[in-house]
């Protein structure tokens, strides 16, 4: 752990940018057809629950990252294995985000450029940022959030003005009943993007006002969920469902449809700016967590030194995880959701919380035998410091 503090506002922005990151790129929840927005909203509610689980763990161990408290909960050996699995998971996810970024740029704009070049540039930038530490990352996010917000507002304005929104495309709501929507939620949107917020368990200990963690996290998830749902609703109403299922980057197609006053058209650059900024932060957060987690697990004192080797590993991983775009997306939206996200985002954290709960209850019941348990507990804490 480096000695750093981030403010509540910075955490909010980081979570929002993280959630939007690659979720804005790909057609999420499109299995639910025109009810994709609903699947996202239900996923968001699930995200609230998951966040409460992570927050529960945090409230038991507010000063140490999960790689450390897993050892306290499960014992040194099992806990270390678990922490190692999580670190690998974070590394894999940052490689995925990097690949998303490269694929997006190549498919739509740089079709002659090799994937390696684009990914290298992004990886170098991320390595540099992570070496600078979480405070720098948080401050950068504050700056760029304003930009992304203004861009978003102006795109929304242009879409509305150009009159391409056809609300009727969103109807009929629940054409096939609620079942496909729930299925999409529990096989996809719950984990990607909302469950991925588990990464913030690594970052929560840095917050300068621990009492605000719960409120800020829930607010940020709600805010980003609303944005994602409305973006997907706009995509569907502009493009029609059939066109989205065939389009690798629906938001790009939507923005390309804008034609205002005969000259405001071909605004692809908006899409590039929004997604590159989002993807950058998502990758930074993932990568930061992997670096800090590795350092914590293997007792490396200067975690920044790990940035380069790990960054290189992620760069190579990002190119080798899939041999083509379909494979990459299929893995991301259908395979790893069930085999990686479900156990690592839902099952294990819940188990950990349960064990932590029981352990702490035992502790408490021991304390309650004393006459002034609370006071004594506090004194002990103070002595430690």
């Amino acid at each position, binding site marked *: 752990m480096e000695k750093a503090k981030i403010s509540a506002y910075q955490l909010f922005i980081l979570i929002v940018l993280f959630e939007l990151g690659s979720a804005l790129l790909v057609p999420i929840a499109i299995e639910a057809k025109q009810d994709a927005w609903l699947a996202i909203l239900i996923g968001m509610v699930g995200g609230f629950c998951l966040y409460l689980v992570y927050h529960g763990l945090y409230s038991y161990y507010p000063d140490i990252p999960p790689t450390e408290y897993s050892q306290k909960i499960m014992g040194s050996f099992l806990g270390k294995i678990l922490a190692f699995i999580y670190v690998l998971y974070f590394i894999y996810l940052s490689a995925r985000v990097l690949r998303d970024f490269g694929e997006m740029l190549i498919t739509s704009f740089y079709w002659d450029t090799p994937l390696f070049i684009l990914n290298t540039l992004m990886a170098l930038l991320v390595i540099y940022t992570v070496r600078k530490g979480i405070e720098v990352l948080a401050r950068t996010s504050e700056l760029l959030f304003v930009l992304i917000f203004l861009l978003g507002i102006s795109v929304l304005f242009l879409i509305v003005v150009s009159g391409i929104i056809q609300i*009727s495309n969103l109807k009929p709501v629940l054409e096939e009943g609620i079942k496909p929507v729930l299925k999409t939620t529990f096989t996809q949107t719950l984990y990607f993007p909302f469950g991925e917020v588990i990464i913030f368990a690594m970052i929560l200990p840095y917050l300068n006002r621990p009492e605000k963690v719960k409120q800020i996290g829930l607010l940020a998830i709600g805010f980003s969920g609303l944005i994602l749902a409305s973006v997907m609703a706009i995509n569907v109403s502009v493009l029609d469902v059939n066109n989205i299922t065939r389009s690798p980057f629906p938001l790009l197609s939507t923005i*390309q449809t804008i034609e205002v006053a005969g000259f405001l*058209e071909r605004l692809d650059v908006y899409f590039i700016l929004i997604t590159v900024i989002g993807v950058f932060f998502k990758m930074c957060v993932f990568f930061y967590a992997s670096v800090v987690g590795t350092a914590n697990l293997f007792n490396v004192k200067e975690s920044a030194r790990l940035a380069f080797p790990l960054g290189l590993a992620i760069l190579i991983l990002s190119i080798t995880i899939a041999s083509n775009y379909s494979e990459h997306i299929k893995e991301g939206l259908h395979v790893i959701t069930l085999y990686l996200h479900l156990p690592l985002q839902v099952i294990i954290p819940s188990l950990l919380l349960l064990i932590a709960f029981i352990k702490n209850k035992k502790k408490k019941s021991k304390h309650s035998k004393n006459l002034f348990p609370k006071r004594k507990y506090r004194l002990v804490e103070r002595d430690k410091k």
Partner: protein
Amino acid sequence: MNHNWILLFLIMTSTVFISGCWNQKELNELAIISAMAIDKNEDGKYVKTIQLVNPVNVAGGLQGGGSGQSPTVTVYTAMGDSVLEAHFHATSKVSRRLYHGHANLIVISEELATEEGIIDILDAFERDPEIRMTSRVVIAHHTKAGDLLKSLTAIDKIPAEKVNGTIHTTERARGESMEVNLQDVVTTLTSAGKETVISGFSLKGDIQQGKKIENIQQSELDTTIESDGLAIFKEGKLVDWYQGEMSRGVVWILDKIQQTDVILDREGQENILTYTVLRQKTRVSADTTNDLPVLTVRVRAEGDIREVRSQIDLTDPYEILDIEKELEKEIKKQLENTVIRTQQNKSDIFGFGEVVRRSDPKKWKKMKNDWNDTYFPNLKVNVKVEAFIRRSGNRTNSYLSDMEQ
């Protein structure tokens, strides 16, 4: 100090790598395509025609030099078994890299659309990230698609601009054609409850004359291209052409009329009054209580009187009410004619199927597969029109009323 120099050097070298020049193409290496056309020849091969802009000649006559000597566009044709193959063959005829980013028009020949359909040719356009989904699509009526691109035009120097501009203006001012882009075509092709409509364009005069620059060096052009009706598709194949009021009916039911004229006849005298619709709203709703859905088209139109050719007393509100009633009847008649003819074509271009789907998804599932052939032709369609006359221009009664009989 030494350290700083190394840093500066590194920063400067990094600009070489991060300036994004991997894909760079200079403007003078590009051939800018303004329009593309697809025909099919006797051997069954696709013929692709591309219209390239000559930037120097577009810039204008004032600069002198080459303009006037050579035309604003140059056209190349190439053949192939698929659209993309034809495109590859075209590259061997042009010295520069073909650039699609500004292509704004795709012309498809009537013959190809009728015999083979447009389903097989659009994927290459949709897939290429350089081609915009907002490119307009047009069907060449009574002419080859390629010829439409070869004819030079006045006022708009680039023929593609002329085609797009004409369709845009016709849609806004008369409502007899419709701007349809690539995305609309693909969306309607994939939708079970809506069929495709594409505007037509035709060539008047001799194409050999039209290719020459002398054609536009006269006040009245020998060869012109003009907007010409709507092509009606069924499952990707062209089945009918609508003209005039018939095509306006389609645009009207699709709620795309922005301005149009309705002419009123009375017994004994035709064309007594011209009513210009300035605002209108058309809503389509479906009642699915019975086995066969009942569709209702509600039109609400507002407008002015623009021409009077008889002694109507426009100062009398009751007279205005009468005229409104007659106008409603006239519009209703026209829309019903369009609906009947379309039902005979068995092609649901109005998207009635989509309306049914939205109001009753379960019933729609049963009807979906034979919607066009079984259900749509037998639908009962009610047309309800409300027309309002708001003003009558700079005069109340016509001077005809003051003339002695």
